[in-house]
Protein backbone atom coordinates (compact mmCIF):
# COMPACT_ATOMS: atom_id res chain seq x y z
CA UNK A 1 0.00 0.00 0.00
CA UNK A 2 0.94 3.61 -0.45
CA UNK A 3 1.60 5.77 2.58
CA UNK A 4 2.09 9.47 3.16
CA UNK A 5 3.59 10.28 6.50
CA UNK A 6 3.50 13.77 7.93
CA UNK A 7 5.08 14.63 11.23
CA UNK A 8 5.27 17.54 13.59
CA UNK A 9 7.56 16.86 16.50
CA UNK A 10 9.71 18.89 18.82
CA UNK A 11 13.11 19.92 17.52
CA UNK A 12 14.88 17.51 19.85
CA UNK A 13 13.28 14.56 18.18
CA UNK A 14 12.98 15.72 14.59
CA UNK A 15 16.18 14.07 13.51
CA UNK A 16 15.38 10.78 15.14
CA UNK A 17 11.98 10.62 13.49
CA UNK A 18 13.39 11.52 10.10
CA UNK A 19 16.17 9.00 10.45
CA UNK A 20 13.77 6.22 11.30
CA UNK A 21 11.24 7.07 8.64
CA UNK A 22 13.92 7.24 5.96
CA UNK A 23 14.60 3.55 6.40
CA UNK A 24 11.12 2.81 5.13
CA UNK A 25 9.93 5.70 3.04
CA UNK A 26 11.19 8.28 0.58
CA UNK A 27 11.72 11.77 1.82
CA UNK A 28 9.56 14.26 -0.10
CA UNK A 29 10.04 17.55 1.68
CA UNK A 30 10.44 18.79 5.23
CA UNK A 31 8.31 16.66 7.53
CA UNK A 32 6.78 14.66 4.67
CA UNK A 33 7.68 11.19 3.49
CA UNK A 34 5.89 8.78 1.21
CA UNK A 35 6.26 5.43 -0.44
CA UNK A 36 4.98 1.98 -1.18
CA UNK A 37 5.20 -0.20 1.87
CA UNK A 38 3.78 -3.49 3.06
CA UNK A 39 1.28 -3.37 5.95
CA UNK A 40 3.72 -5.30 8.13
CA UNK A 41 6.55 -2.88 7.48
CA UNK A 42 4.25 0.01 8.27
CA UNK A 43 3.48 -1.51 11.65
CA UNK A 44 7.20 -1.91 12.22
CA UNK A 45 7.77 1.71 11.36
CA UNK A 46 4.97 2.81 13.67
CA UNK A 47 6.31 0.85 16.58
CA UNK A 48 9.78 2.26 16.04
CA UNK A 49 8.37 5.76 16.00
CA UNK A 50 6.35 5.11 19.09
CA UNK A 51 9.52 4.68 21.08
CA UNK A 52 10.89 7.98 19.86
CA UNK A 53 8.08 10.46 20.12
CA UNK A 54 6.53 11.98 23.17
CA UNK A 55 2.88 11.24 22.70
CA UNK A 56 1.87 14.22 24.75
CA UNK A 57 3.68 16.74 22.56
CA UNK A 58 4.34 15.27 19.12
CA UNK A 59 2.09 14.23 16.30
CA UNK A 60 2.54 12.01 13.28
CA UNK A 61 -0.13 11.49 10.66
CA UNK A 62 -0.27 8.57 8.23
CA UNK A 63 -2.42 8.68 5.12
CA UNK A 64 -2.71 5.24 3.59
CA UNK A 65 -4.02 4.26 0.19
CA UNK A 66 -4.72 0.76 -0.99
CA UNK A 67 -3.83 1.96 -4.45
CA UNK A 68 -2.81 5.32 -5.81
CA UNK A 69 -4.97 4.80 -8.88
CA UNK A 70 -7.66 7.26 -7.80
CA UNK A 71 -5.30 9.94 -6.63
CA UNK A 72 -3.11 12.40 -8.44
CA UNK A 73 0.03 14.13 -7.40
CA UNK A 74 0.96 17.61 -8.40
CA UNK A 75 3.95 19.63 -7.46
CA UNK A 76 4.17 23.41 -7.50
CA UNK A 77 7.59 24.89 -7.46
CA UNK A 78 10.66 22.72 -7.18
CA UNK A 79 10.73 19.02 -6.65
CA UNK A 80 12.70 18.47 -3.48
CA UNK A 81 12.68 14.71 -3.22
CA UNK A 82 10.53 11.68 -3.63
CA UNK A 83 10.56 8.26 -5.01
CA UNK A 84 12.92 7.49 -7.80
CA UNK A 85 13.91 3.98 -8.76
CA UNK A 86 16.53 5.18 -11.20
CA UNK A 87 19.32 7.30 -9.88
Amino acid sequence: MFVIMVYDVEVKRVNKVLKTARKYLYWVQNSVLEGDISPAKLEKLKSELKHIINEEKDSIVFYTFRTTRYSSREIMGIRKGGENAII
Partner: protein
Amino acid sequence: MKRTIYIFSDGELRRKQNTIYFEGEKGRKYIPVENITEIMVFGEITINKRILEFLSQNEIILHFFNHYGYYTGSFYPREHLNSGYMILKQAEHYLDNEKRLLLARLFVWGAIENIKKVLNYYINRGVELNEIKENIKNLQETIGDCKNVEELMALEGNARDYYYKGFDLILNNPDFVFESRTRRPPLNRLNALISFGNSLLYTVILSEIYKTHLDPRIGFLHTTNFRRFSLNLDIAEIFKPIIVDRLIFTLINKGMIKKTHFEKHLNGIVLNEKGRLLFVEEMDKRLKATIKHQKLRRNVSYRHLIKLELYKLEKHLMDETCYQPFIARW
Protein backbone atom coordinates in the same frame (compact mmCIF):
# COMPACT_ATOMS: atom_id res chain seq x y z
CA MET B 1 6.20 -4.91 -3.01
CA LYS B 2 9.85 -4.31 -2.41
CA ARG B 3 11.62 -2.48 -5.17
CA THR B 4 14.69 -2.45 -7.28
CA ILE B 5 16.97 0.54 -7.41
CA TYR B 6 18.97 1.27 -10.54
CA ILE B 7 22.03 3.43 -10.24
CA PHE B 8 23.22 5.06 -13.43
CA SER B 9 25.11 8.02 -12.06
CA ASP B 10 28.56 7.93 -10.55
CA GLY B 11 29.09 8.40 -6.87
CA GLU B 12 29.43 6.78 -3.55
CA LEU B 13 27.11 4.29 -1.93
CA ARG B 14 27.35 4.00 1.78
CA ARG B 15 25.62 3.31 5.02
CA LYS B 16 24.37 6.37 6.78
CA GLN B 17 21.85 6.72 9.57
CA ASN B 18 21.13 3.03 9.32
CA THR B 19 19.91 3.25 5.79
CA ILE B 20 21.49 3.36 2.36
CA TYR B 21 22.82 6.67 1.20
CA PHE B 22 23.92 7.57 -2.27
CA GLU B 23 25.93 10.66 -2.98
CA GLY B 24 26.72 11.52 -6.55
CA GLU B 25 27.51 14.55 -8.61
CA LYS B 26 23.79 15.03 -9.25
CA GLY B 27 22.91 15.15 -5.61
CA ARG B 28 22.39 13.01 -2.59
CA LYS B 29 19.68 10.56 -1.76
CA TYR B 30 18.63 8.26 1.00
CA ILE B 31 17.31 4.89 -0.10
CA PRO B 32 14.93 3.11 2.28
CA VAL B 33 16.64 -0.18 3.18
CA GLU B 34 13.50 -1.83 4.38
CA ASN B 35 11.87 -1.47 1.02
CA ILE B 36 14.59 -2.65 -1.33
CA THR B 37 15.46 -6.12 -2.57
CA GLU B 38 18.17 -5.42 -5.07
CA ILE B 39 20.33 -2.68 -6.47
CA MET B 40 21.52 -2.74 -10.05
CA VAL B 41 24.62 -0.71 -10.60
CA PHE B 42 25.43 0.68 -14.03
CA GLY B 43 27.40 3.74 -12.98
CA GLU B 44 30.83 3.90 -11.43
CA ILE B 45 30.31 3.74 -7.71
CA THR B 46 32.51 3.51 -4.68
CA ILE B 47 31.54 1.17 -1.91
CA ASN B 48 33.10 0.09 1.34
CA LYS B 49 32.88 -2.96 3.52
CA ARG B 50 30.43 -1.30 5.87
CA ILE B 51 27.78 -1.02 3.17
CA LEU B 52 28.35 -4.58 2.02
CA GLU B 53 27.90 -5.78 5.56
CA PHE B 54 24.77 -3.71 5.90
CA LEU B 55 23.34 -4.96 2.61
CA SER B 56 24.11 -8.49 3.64
CA GLN B 57 22.26 -8.00 6.90
CA ASN B 58 19.26 -6.70 5.04
CA GLU B 59 19.44 -9.38 2.36
CA ILE B 60 19.89 -6.99 -0.50
CA ILE B 61 21.72 -8.14 -3.62
CA LEU B 62 24.01 -5.84 -5.59
CA HIS B 63 24.30 -6.53 -9.31
CA PHE B 64 27.09 -4.87 -11.23
CA PHE B 65 27.18 -4.07 -14.93
CA ASN B 66 30.22 -2.69 -16.66
CA HIS B 67 30.58 0.43 -18.74
CA TYR B 68 29.03 -1.25 -21.79
CA GLY B 69 26.12 -2.75 -19.92
CA TYR B 70 27.54 -6.26 -19.72
CA TYR B 71 26.93 -8.16 -16.52
CA THR B 72 30.00 -8.09 -14.31
CA GLY B 73 28.87 -9.97 -11.26
CA SER B 74 26.82 -9.80 -8.13
CA PHE B 75 27.37 -9.30 -4.49
CA TYR B 76 25.35 -12.29 -3.37
CA PRO B 77 25.03 -11.98 0.41
CA ARG B 78 25.42 -15.01 2.59
CA GLU B 79 22.43 -17.32 2.18
CA HIS B 80 19.75 -16.48 4.66
CA LEU B 81 17.55 -19.40 3.79
CA ASN B 82 19.75 -22.36 4.47
CA SER B 83 18.49 -25.81 3.87
CA GLY B 84 20.83 -28.77 3.62
CA TYR B 85 17.83 -30.83 2.66
CA MET B 86 17.12 -28.70 -0.40
CA ILE B 87 20.72 -28.73 -1.56
CA LEU B 88 20.85 -32.50 -1.28
CA LYS B 89 17.62 -32.81 -3.22
CA GLN B 90 18.88 -30.46 -5.88
CA ALA B 91 22.15 -32.37 -6.19
CA GLU B 92 20.26 -35.64 -6.29
CA HIS B 93 18.19 -34.44 -9.21
CA TYR B 94 21.32 -33.24 -10.91
CA LEU B 95 23.32 -36.44 -10.47
CA ASP B 96 20.55 -38.83 -11.41
CA ASN B 97 20.52 -38.72 -15.19
CA GLU B 98 16.87 -39.65 -15.53
CA LYS B 99 15.74 -36.98 -13.11
CA ARG B 100 17.96 -34.31 -14.57
CA LEU B 101 16.82 -35.06 -18.09
CA LEU B 102 13.19 -34.83 -17.04
CA LEU B 103 13.69 -31.35 -15.64
CA ALA B 104 15.79 -30.22 -18.58
CA ARG B 105 13.09 -31.45 -20.95
CA LEU B 106 10.45 -29.54 -19.04
CA PHE B 107 12.48 -26.35 -19.25
CA VAL B 108 12.95 -26.69 -22.99
CA TRP B 109 9.33 -27.67 -23.49
CA GLY B 110 8.16 -24.65 -21.52
CA ALA B 111 10.49 -22.32 -23.37
CA ILE B 112 9.25 -23.52 -26.76
CA GLU B 113 5.65 -23.38 -25.64
CA ASN B 114 6.08 -19.72 -24.70
CA ILE B 115 7.87 -19.00 -27.97
CA LYS B 116 4.84 -20.39 -29.77
CA LYS B 117 2.60 -18.09 -27.76
CA VAL B 118 4.56 -15.08 -28.91
CA LEU B 119 4.41 -16.25 -32.51
CA ASN B 120 0.70 -16.92 -32.24
CA TYR B 121 0.09 -13.38 -31.14
CA TYR B 122 1.61 -12.06 -34.35
CA ILE B 123 0.03 -14.75 -36.51
CA ASN B 124 -3.33 -13.51 -35.32
CA ARG B 125 -2.28 -10.07 -36.47
CA GLY B 126 -1.58 -11.34 -39.95
CA VAL B 127 2.18 -11.86 -39.89
CA GLU B 128 3.28 -14.84 -41.99
CA LEU B 129 4.83 -16.95 -39.26
CA ASN B 130 2.99 -20.21 -39.75
CA GLU B 131 5.91 -21.98 -41.37
CA ILE B 132 8.28 -20.98 -38.59
CA LYS B 133 5.80 -22.10 -35.98
CA GLU B 134 5.36 -25.42 -37.76
CA ASN B 135 9.13 -26.00 -37.76
CA ILE B 136 9.36 -25.18 -34.08
CA LYS B 137 6.45 -27.44 -33.33
CA ASN B 138 8.13 -30.32 -35.12
CA LEU B 139 11.25 -29.78 -33.06
CA GLN B 140 9.21 -29.67 -29.89
CA GLU B 141 7.76 -33.06 -30.67
CA THR B 142 11.23 -34.59 -30.69
CA ILE B 143 12.08 -33.45 -27.17
CA GLY B 144 11.31 -36.93 -25.93
CA ASP B 145 13.91 -38.42 -28.28
CA CYS B 146 16.80 -36.45 -26.81
CA LYS B 147 18.95 -38.81 -24.85
CA ASN B 148 21.08 -36.29 -23.04
CA VAL B 149 21.16 -32.69 -22.02
CA GLU B 150 23.54 -31.68 -24.81
CA GLU B 151 21.04 -32.83 -27.43
CA LEU B 152 18.34 -30.87 -25.66
CA MET B 153 20.45 -27.75 -25.66
CA ALA B 154 21.06 -28.20 -29.38
CA LEU B 155 17.36 -28.68 -29.99
CA GLU B 156 16.53 -25.57 -28.04
CA GLY B 157 19.16 -23.67 -30.01
CA ASN B 158 17.64 -24.82 -33.29
CA ALA B 159 14.17 -23.83 -32.18
CA ARG B 160 15.47 -20.42 -31.23
CA ASP B 161 17.14 -20.05 -34.64
CA TYR B 162 13.81 -20.53 -36.34
CA TYR B 163 12.18 -18.20 -33.87
CA TYR B 164 14.71 -15.42 -34.40
CA LYS B 165 14.12 -15.64 -38.15
CA GLY B 166 10.58 -14.57 -37.37
CA PHE B 167 11.84 -11.37 -35.74
CA ASP B 168 12.37 -9.66 -39.08
CA LEU B 169 8.82 -10.47 -40.12
CA ILE B 170 7.39 -9.26 -36.83
CA LEU B 171 9.34 -6.02 -36.68
CA ASN B 172 9.58 -5.20 -40.37
CA ASN B 173 11.87 -2.30 -39.54
CA PRO B 174 15.02 -1.56 -41.54
CA ASP B 175 16.75 -0.13 -38.46
CA PHE B 176 16.35 -3.38 -36.62
CA VAL B 177 17.19 -6.40 -38.70
CA PHE B 178 18.10 -9.68 -37.20
CA GLU B 179 20.45 -11.41 -39.68
CA SER B 180 21.88 -13.86 -37.20
CA ARG B 181 22.29 -14.19 -33.47
CA THR B 182 25.60 -12.75 -32.39
CA ARG B 183 26.95 -12.37 -28.89
CA ARG B 184 30.13 -11.15 -27.30
CA PRO B 185 29.88 -8.67 -28.91
CA PRO B 186 26.43 -8.35 -30.47
CA LEU B 187 26.93 -7.19 -34.05
CA ASN B 188 23.72 -5.31 -34.64
CA ARG B 189 21.12 -3.38 -32.72
CA LEU B 190 18.59 -6.13 -32.33
CA ASN B 191 21.24 -8.47 -30.99
CA ALA B 192 22.38 -5.80 -28.57
CA LEU B 193 18.83 -5.49 -27.28
CA ILE B 194 18.43 -9.23 -26.89
CA SER B 195 21.73 -9.56 -25.06
CA PHE B 196 21.04 -6.69 -22.71
CA GLY B 197 17.52 -7.86 -21.99
CA ASN B 198 18.62 -11.39 -21.29
CA SER B 199 21.37 -10.36 -18.91
CA LEU B 200 18.91 -8.19 -17.00
CA LEU B 201 16.53 -11.11 -16.76
CA TYR B 202 19.28 -13.39 -15.47
CA THR B 203 20.02 -11.05 -12.61
CA VAL B 204 16.36 -10.59 -11.75
CA ILE B 205 15.92 -14.34 -11.56
CA LEU B 206 19.05 -14.66 -9.48
CA SER B 207 17.57 -12.20 -7.00
CA GLU B 208 14.42 -14.25 -6.82
CA ILE B 209 16.37 -17.46 -6.30
CA TYR B 210 18.03 -15.79 -3.35
CA LYS B 211 14.66 -15.57 -1.66
CA THR B 212 14.12 -19.32 -1.88
CA HIS B 213 16.00 -22.30 -0.54
CA LEU B 214 17.35 -23.20 -3.94
CA ASP B 215 21.02 -23.00 -4.74
CA PRO B 216 21.61 -20.94 -7.87
CA ARG B 217 24.79 -22.85 -8.62
CA ILE B 218 23.04 -26.08 -9.50
CA GLY B 219 21.18 -25.87 -12.79
CA PHE B 220 19.68 -28.73 -14.73
CA LEU B 221 19.53 -27.80 -18.37
CA HIS B 222 22.68 -25.75 -18.10
CA THR B 223 25.53 -27.84 -16.85
CA THR B 224 26.85 -26.96 -13.46
CA ASN B 225 30.50 -26.26 -13.90
CA PHE B 226 32.84 -23.65 -12.65
CA ARG B 227 30.65 -20.81 -13.71
CA ARG B 228 29.00 -19.13 -10.77
CA PHE B 229 25.33 -19.52 -11.39
CA SER B 230 23.35 -21.70 -13.72
CA LEU B 231 19.92 -22.27 -12.24
CA ASN B 232 18.89 -18.75 -13.18
CA LEU B 233 19.79 -19.51 -16.79
CA ASP B 234 17.43 -22.49 -16.76
CA ILE B 235 14.51 -20.52 -15.43
CA ALA B 236 15.27 -17.66 -17.80
CA GLU B 237 14.62 -19.90 -20.81
CA ILE B 238 10.97 -20.00 -19.87
CA PHE B 239 10.60 -16.28 -19.32
CA LYS B 240 12.76 -14.88 -22.10
CA PRO B 241 10.05 -15.03 -24.79
CA ILE B 242 7.32 -13.57 -22.63
CA ILE B 243 9.30 -10.90 -20.85
CA VAL B 244 12.36 -9.86 -22.84
CA ASP B 245 11.27 -10.55 -26.41
CA ARG B 246 7.85 -9.03 -25.96
CA LEU B 247 9.41 -5.96 -24.42
CA ILE B 248 11.77 -5.59 -27.38
CA PHE B 249 8.87 -5.80 -29.83
CA THR B 250 6.98 -3.15 -27.91
CA LEU B 251 9.95 -0.83 -27.72
CA ILE B 252 10.68 -1.06 -31.42
CA ASN B 253 7.14 -1.15 -32.76
CA LYS B 254 6.13 1.84 -30.70
CA GLY B 255 9.21 3.67 -31.89
CA MET B 256 10.44 4.23 -28.35
CA ILE B 257 13.91 2.95 -28.98
CA LYS B 258 15.73 4.48 -31.91
CA LYS B 259 18.95 4.24 -33.84
CA THR B 260 20.37 7.01 -31.68
CA HIS B 261 20.21 4.80 -28.62
CA PHE B 262 23.09 2.68 -29.80
CA GLU B 263 26.79 3.14 -30.14
CA LYS B 264 29.64 1.30 -31.69
CA HIS B 265 32.09 -0.27 -29.36
CA LEU B 266 35.12 -2.08 -30.75
CA ASN B 267 33.55 -4.44 -33.30
CA GLY B 268 30.15 -4.68 -31.78
CA ILE B 269 27.15 -2.52 -31.14
CA VAL B 270 25.89 -1.80 -27.66
CA LEU B 271 23.18 0.33 -26.15
CA ASN B 272 24.37 3.71 -24.97
CA GLU B 273 23.48 5.13 -21.63
CA LYS B 274 20.23 6.68 -22.77
CA GLY B 275 19.18 3.46 -24.40
CA ARG B 276 20.01 1.44 -21.33
CA LEU B 277 18.09 3.84 -19.13
CA LEU B 278 15.04 3.52 -21.33
CA PHE B 279 15.28 -0.24 -21.51
CA VAL B 280 15.75 -0.66 -17.79
CA GLU B 281 12.85 1.64 -17.06
CA GLU B 282 10.51 -0.28 -19.34
CA MET B 283 11.75 -3.62 -18.07
CA ASP B 284 11.06 -2.52 -14.51
CA LYS B 285 7.55 -1.52 -15.50
CA ARG B 286 7.01 -4.85 -17.18
CA LEU B 287 8.21 -6.82 -14.18
CA LYS B 288 5.79 -4.91 -11.99
CA ALA B 289 2.88 -5.41 -14.37
CA THR B 290 0.37 -7.89 -13.11
CA ILE B 291 -1.56 -10.69 -14.73
CA LYS B 292 -4.37 -12.81 -13.43
CA HIS B 293 -2.97 -16.09 -12.20
CA GLN B 294 -5.17 -19.00 -13.24
CA LYS B 295 -4.60 -21.19 -10.22
CA LEU B 296 -4.22 -18.59 -7.53
CA ARG B 297 -7.14 -16.56 -8.91
CA ARG B 298 -5.50 -13.29 -8.12
CA ASN B 299 -3.24 -10.79 -9.77
CA VAL B 300 0.46 -11.47 -9.61
CA SER B 301 3.32 -9.49 -11.07
CA TYR B 302 5.74 -10.99 -13.54
CA ARG B 303 8.42 -10.82 -10.92
CA HIS B 304 6.28 -12.79 -8.53
CA LEU B 305 5.55 -15.24 -11.30
CA ILE B 306 9.25 -16.03 -11.42
CA LYS B 307 9.26 -16.73 -7.72
CA LEU B 308 6.23 -18.98 -8.04
CA GLU B 309 8.13 -20.86 -10.70
CA LEU B 310 10.93 -21.45 -8.22
CA TYR B 311 8.50 -22.68 -5.63
CA LYS B 312 7.14 -25.16 -8.15
CA LEU B 313 10.67 -26.33 -8.73
CA GLU B 314 11.21 -26.76 -5.00
CA LYS B 315 8.06 -28.85 -4.83
CA HIS B 316 9.33 -30.97 -7.66
CA LEU B 317 12.68 -31.52 -6.00
CA MET B 318 10.95 -32.58 -2.83
CA ASP B 319 8.91 -35.09 -4.88
CA GLU B 320 5.65 -33.44 -4.00
CA THR B 321 4.24 -32.31 -7.32
CA CYS B 322 5.78 -32.67 -10.73
CA TYR B 323 7.12 -29.39 -12.09
CA GLN B 324 5.09 -27.82 -14.84
CA PRO B 325 6.61 -24.84 -16.53
CA PHE B 326 4.64 -21.63 -16.68
CA ILE B 327 2.98 -21.18 -20.02
CA ALA B 328 1.51 -17.85 -20.98
CA ARG B 329 -2.16 -17.93 -21.81
CA TRP B 330 -2.31 -14.98 -24.10
